[in-house]
């Protein structure tokens, strides 16, 4: 009997184990999704709730009394002065604890945006030629320069704060966007170079040679042949540098003191150290802070095309 069943065992696709496998994968995916999305969902949901509703037990995932007052506070009430006196008059049950620095949120966002865009552009201008040179040109000290650049990335930011501070102070850049752009570049350029060097190295040397024989100078080889092929990596670099600059907290905290130069994370964090705290307002600020990176990610996502280099050389 057993021989017969063994003979025919694989005649048909084994159905039950297959179904079980799919079920496990499905459940695992759901758990992962919930794990990743639940905090975000709560962020969005609570931003539409009043301070009273946000603390209700059990929490309301879908607001029972949705309100836009937090967003109104960000976008329209920026000019209204909030003081301790005006705040104590607010009804604690209905919320309305708008932080005194609420009006700084939008300018801080604009600061963050300027810094992030400048860091992205400068990263590309510096990182691309550096990476191309290190990947495709043989020069004395090539390996040493790659390792040096990588080494700078193993130093934690906190160790760099004091030296950075001294440099920024001596340059007279304290409390300016320039201080942030400069220090963020120091932090992100090594990563950019590292990503692009490994990508350029993966493109065949013959492509470089062919372009130069076809009449390209080194610079033209980089711009006409390597850049179009590197789009997926460039997108990764753009996203990474934009998000790093957008989210950076420590250096911004050290180098900026006034709303003129403060970035979004600093201002949002300051809401928690105000004399009264509105969690729903902070969450609304969080939602606003998330929007630009999401737009950037959506804009560039379609350029992340894999397999573009297939067919360059015999595989």
């Amino acid at each position, binding site marked *: 009997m057993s021989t017969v069943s063994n003979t025919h065992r694989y005649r048909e696709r084994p159905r039950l184990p297959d179904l079980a496998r799919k079920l496990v994968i499905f459940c695992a995916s759901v758990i992962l999704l919930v794990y990743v999305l639940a905090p975000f969902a709560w962020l969005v949901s609570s931003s539409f709730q009043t301070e009273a509703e946000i603390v209700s037990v059990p929490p309301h995932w879908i607001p029972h009394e949705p309100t836009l007052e937090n967003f109104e506070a960000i976008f329209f009430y920026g000019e209204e002065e909030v003081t301790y006196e005006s705040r104590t008059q607010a009804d604690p049950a209905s919320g309305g604890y708008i932080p005194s620095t609420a009006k700084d949120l939008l300018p801080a966002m604009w600061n963050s945006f300027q810094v992030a865009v400048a860091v992205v552009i400068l990263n590309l201008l510096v990182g691309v030629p550096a990476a191309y040179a290190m990947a495709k040109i043989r020069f004395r000290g090539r390996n040493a320069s790659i390792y040096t650049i990588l080494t700078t990335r193993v130093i934690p930011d906190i160790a760099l704060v004091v030296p950075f501070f001294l440099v920024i102070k001596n340059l007279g850049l304290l409390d300016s966007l320039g201080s942030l752009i400069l220090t963020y570049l120091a932090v992100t350029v090594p990563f950019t170079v590292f990503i692009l060097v490994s990508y350029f190295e993966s493109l*065949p040397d*013959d*492509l470089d*040679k*062919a*372009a*130069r*024989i*076809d*009449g*390209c*100078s080194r610079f*033209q080889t980089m711009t*006409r*042949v390597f850049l*179009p*092929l590197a789009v997926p990596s460039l997108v990764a670099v753009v996203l990474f540098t934009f998000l790093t600059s957008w989210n950076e907290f420590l250096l911004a905290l050290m180098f900026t003191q006034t709303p003129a130069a403060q970035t979004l994370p600093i201002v949002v964090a300051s809401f928690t150290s105000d004399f009264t705290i509105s969690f729903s307002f902070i969450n609304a600020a969080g939602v606003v802070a998330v929007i630009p990176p999401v737009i950037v990610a959506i804009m560039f996502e379609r350029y992340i095309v894999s397999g*573009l*280099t*297939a*067919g*360059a*050389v*015999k595989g």
Partner: protein
Amino acid sequence: MAQIRFENVAKYYGSVLAVDKLNLEIRDKEFVVLLGPSGCGKTTTLNMIAGLEELSEGDIWFDEDIVNFMPPHKRDVAMVFQSYALYPHKSVYENIAFGLAMRKYPKAEIDKRVRDAAARLHIDHLLDRRPNQLSGGQRQRVALGRAMVRQPAVFLMDEPLSNLDAALRVSMRAEIKDLHQTMQTTFVYVTHDQAEALTLADRIVVMKDGIVQQVGTPDEIYEQPRNMFVASFLGNPPINYLEGELIASGGRMAFRRDGLTLSLNDDASAKLSGQDGRKAILGIRPEDVDDRATPAEGGAIDGHVNFVMPIGSDQFLNMKLEGKELFFRVGKETRHGNGEEVTLAANLDRLHLFDPETQKSLLWDQGG
């Protein structure tokens, strides 16, 4: 017009010597093949012509100019790579047109040249495709087209056929030969495939370990190898070697190893006269025997057939002879069986003799 001249060129990578003491003149419109095993410096030599590698020593001349530090895009050269090196983000048309566009040719002229080249290479229906939509053979044609349209003074090819299958390789070989004849330009071709070298070249440069072993026409290289490396690198199956000594017998010189004695012809006897007792290595190519002719005096090779390998047109005999295994190629008119005793007639005009110490030819080394 381009004549290329190497004067004492050397190339080091750190302390590793890639090419040494290279003195070579490639004539205008000549088809020169650089032949040698991997790592012999042939591709480095080609890259130096292209300007992709800098020289460590010496000079390279294009006609009357030294071009040591001239960047590739200023030299009038085109190159075809083993890996094809097509631009994956460009269409076939753009790939072929790229070199002309970079040199700012007018659009109409570019279009005309691209279409002419495509038609000539039978890829005119593929112009809108991307390289990854093409087969290996088609990609190689695009790479050829990209080089052709430039009408360069020097056409460089780095093992262009190595990635193709055997049948395609043979037909592309014929096309490259035809291309050279119609383009009337200087070709420098790198390969490790002796058949390609022999079929394509006007002259072959055999290289080993960065040093040129011999320069000559395919016939010279094959018939008059200067050393044992050249002799064994060309020919399939390779030349047979037998160690022995020279003896004087019957007024002429002969090679002897135990029971085997082969008389040398007049020229060889004259060159080697008086060297009785000198140790020597005999080289005999597999095809330089005949199993049906009656051996001339001092021209018989007696041996024991280990096994027979038919190859369609002929048959190979693996023979045991004086303690050595040798390969011979004979016609298939006479069937041979395993274990048979056979007498072959050696072609005494085609024997090679080498010095066991220097491995240089005793017959053809006079030229240096």
